[in-house]
């Protein structure tokens, strides 16, 4: 059964309430917007990538607590890392959130392990991974990403009435 208790724990609620690095950056080197068309959530990610390291990162948008906390914690984890380190962390986070790897098998995941429980909630995985998809899009000069795009690991329509 899904592990909600571990999902809505203090650290996630705190980042939702007081998101870190919230806003935009005037002249980012990399920028992308991510959408989850199923729930209307959208976030933008701005990055300033220096010669070696990510000097600054910010996000902004309308989303649920899981998405906002994921974005906030992503920015704190990514700031100061090299692009290669950031790319590795993106891969680890996506693998953990989609249940392909346990958080123990992700050496760089650190405090982001609080999102491991989301893999038990298929309808909420997209919320957690949207910021990471968007960051990946920014690095790869994809201006707009969507949780419904073909390359989305969770690509699966949620229908209904």
């Amino acid at each position, binding site marked *: *059964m899904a592990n909600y208790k571990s999902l809505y724990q203090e650290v996630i*609620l705190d980042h939702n309430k007081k998101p870190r690095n919230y806003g935009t950056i005037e002249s980012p080197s990399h920028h992308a917007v991510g959408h989850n068309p199923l*729930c209307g959530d959208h976030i933008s990610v701005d990055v300033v990538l220096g010669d070696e390291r990510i000097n600054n990162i910010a996000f902004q948008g309308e989303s649920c607590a899981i998405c906002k906390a994921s974005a906030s914690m992503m920015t704190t984890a990514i700031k100061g890392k090299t692009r290669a380190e950031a790319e590795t962390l993106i891969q680890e986070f996506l693998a953990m959130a989609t249940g392909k790897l346990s958080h123990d098998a992700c050496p760089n995941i650190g405090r982001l392990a609080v999102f491991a429980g989301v893999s038990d909630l298929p309808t909420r995985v997209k919320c957690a991974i949207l910021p990471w998809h968007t960051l990946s899009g920014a690095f790869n000069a994809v201006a707009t990403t969507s949780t419904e795009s073909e390359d989305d690991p969770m690509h699966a329509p949620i229908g209904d009435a």
Partner: protein
Amino acid sequence: MSAIQTTLKSRSTPAFDVERIRADFPILTLKVNDKPLVYLDNAASSQMPQQVIDRLVRYQTTQHANINRAVHYLSEIATSEFEEARRKLQHFINANEEREVIFTSGTTDSINLVMHGYGRKFIGAGDEIILTTLEHHSNIVPWQMLAEEKGAKIRVVPINDAGELLIDEYEKLFNERTKFVGVMHVSNALGTINPIKEMIAFAHARGVPVLVDGAQAAPHMKVDVQDLDCDFYAFSGHKLCGPTGIGILYGRAALLENMQPFKGGGDMILSVTFEKTIYNTIPHKFEAGTPPIAAAIGLGAAVDYLSEIGMDAIAAHELALLKYASEQINAMPGVRIIGTAEHKAAVLSFAVDGVHPHDIGTLLNQEGIAVRTGHHCAQPVMQRLHVPATSRASFAFYNSMDEVDALIAGIRTVQKIFT
């Protein structure tokens, strides 16, 4: 309204024993996350009573064969049970003739049938189709496809902040190019009951036929297609305590007879040569291929079950649930009801300050409470009311006042977590 007040006081009318009804639904005894299931997602799909489950089992174990074909025993009994189900549905909606009741796969399929069968034949370039802001995507997208194909135009009836159609504006949309009206009976997102009888009369005075999307109305109130005087009425079996994969299109016989078939194949023909095919008579003209026989018979059993309880009794109990839940929510700081029409069916969309609907849905699920969160396949109405999404509790006659209390307690828990 005195009956409702009595219900509220005693939490159950003498005539409506909700505990006895709940005993018919095996799924309602489930526990979810170690809590008793509180199923409040009935607008998406309703649950099935044992009587319908038993009917499906009896059909499958003693009566199944293909219909309208062979002369053997099973084929004859399956055919007669299938047609008996059609008659049950005819009486359920008070259609004039049984051939006006077409089995489809659901409301979406019914609307697409009308778009292809009627729209493609009778709607052309420059013609106008009137829809409303409230419509479900299934009563928008088929007409957009037709408009694109034919060069027709879609006009949209606006709503007020309460989620009610602006009838003056509806009337102003009519002109000599108006060829069709599509309107939902009850809004799936807000619960608004639209004044369709008056809207139909207005359209008919101008010679314009009307399709009613009854998906959210048929399960909750007595529907009389002759009294409404509608031309088409579409609804789904799985929202009506029946199986998935079955739905109904009611159509006026004179219109159905002039329409193009939607799907070609077996059963919908009288004779086929490579030179010419002669189509079958209605309703068979619109039922190509082997239909979902078991599902149709199951739906017949479902409307028997509902009729025995009585649609008026169902409507009264659901209205009492809605009234009680609305009062509770209105008394909660930080919670707002989305959709406050004067006439509403048992749908309660709400927003909690500072909490995204998806978080509400996940946290209520932790308490065993099933609600729907999202745009409810009605993005235009969400845009109009400036909400990206809502949480929606939708009631059925088997829901109890205790379950409303559980919902309210669940919302309080959500608020506590997010303070």
